[in-house]
């Protein structure tokens, strides 16, 4: 059967990759076992917990539910790609400062879901943060600190229209 496996090409955090594995192998397992990117975690393996969240062509996906053949030609972003040249991403800084990570299992997925949210909505309200994170379960139950970390990261980025308004008033 090995002979029938096609080579599958995609990029991970900007780097080109080619893997020759069973096409039904889960993207999560290819990332962890073949590419040794173990940041993405397996929690439930059924798309409920979000620990394996990565971005595929700019959309958030559960990598445990993606057969790797469907990643052919796509751009994958994982938690390993957030920090650039050793410099933490603003979300990672905020999670450190605000205690957004406890045991850390959900954190890579939470960071990717937060990245997805801020890419579309740089200054989300709390209900929008809650909705965007609804698919990421933290069993340390640190949700309030996670939400606070995301709000802090958003505030640390370019000032919002609201912020500018306040600045003009004062």
């Amino acid at each position: 059967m090995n002979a029938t496996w096609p080579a599958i090409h995609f990029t991970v955090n900007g780097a080109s990759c080619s893997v020759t594995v069973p096409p039904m192998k889960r993207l999560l397992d290819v990332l962890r076992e073949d590419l040794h990117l173990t940041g993405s975690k397996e929690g439930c393996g059924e798309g409920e917990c979000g620990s394996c969240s990565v971005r595929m062509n700019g959309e958030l996906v559960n990598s445990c539910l993606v057969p790797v053949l469907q990643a052919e030609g796509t751009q994958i972003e994982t938690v390993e790609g957030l920090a650039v040249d050793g410099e933490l991403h603003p979300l990672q800084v905020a999670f450190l400062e605000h205690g957004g990570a406890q045991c850390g299992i959900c954190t890579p997925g939470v960071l990717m879901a937060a990245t997805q949210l801020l890419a579309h909505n740089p200054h989300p309200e709390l209900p929008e943060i809650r909705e965007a994170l609804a698919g990421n379960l933290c069993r340390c139950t640190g949700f309030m600190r996670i939400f606070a970390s995301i709000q802090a990261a958003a505030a640390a980025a370019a000032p919002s229209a609201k912020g500018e308004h306040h600045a003009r008033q004062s």
Partner: protein
Amino acid sequence: MRGNPEAHQLVAPGSLGGVLELMAREPGEWTPIAGGTELMVAFSAGRLTAPRLVSLWGISELRFIQVTPETIAIGAGATFLDMRRHKVLSDELPLIARASGWIGSVANQSRATLGGNLVNGSPAADSSPALLVYDAEVELISVRGRRRIPYAAFHSGYKSNIMAADELLFAVHLPRRFAAHRQYLRKVGTRRAMAISKVALAATARLENAVVREIRVAAASLAPFPVRLVKTEAALLDRPLGRESLLAARAALLDEARPIDDIRSTADYRRQVAVNLLEEFLLELRRERVRQ
């Protein structure tokens, strides 16, 4: 037991024609897989029995939302995020956008497709009640050609439908004539996000001089597949909306609902909630009548 990726064949012809030819050559041999939010869950758990799968993901001929003067056509490969983000769909047929927001999390909505939701045919399918009250038609395609049937005639039993072994769901067609109707959709589940519904009810209606001139009511989890509640509709149609018709509609719903006990809820609870949702909709409709 975990799924073994070597035990399943997965191919990606990359075009609609390629998929249809494969399905025509070996009818029933190939299981289509789109965003994988159903089949990959079964795979991960070692429960996927399909030996050969054909990928529909990335086939642009299936992923579209097309607006014409009379209808909105949604390709079977459109994701729930695609539907949530579509302006005309959200404005005119808002129940679909709202149901799309219930389908799991963002990471599920980015992958789960309308076609997958319908073909999977869960009795609790989130998109189904909305499609039923909008008089949706489904378009099926095979190498033999295309055919269109009312969505209400698509499901034939628990997780089964009327598609032939070589057919694929191509698109869902929605008439653009409900913008002025009173529209209702509510899902009752254990939590707002991610939860599979215990029961969901959708309705659209149009009043004329306080008389119900058009009404459609549909539900998930009240039968082996999502259904129009035709007796409930008949109890309301062409009658003035008042206490009498409300009581008749409640009785009709209790008579025609066929819910079951399962891990998510009980038949009794589902029946009770369904009639309460119906009443909530009818009271909303009556308030609108008072305003007229």
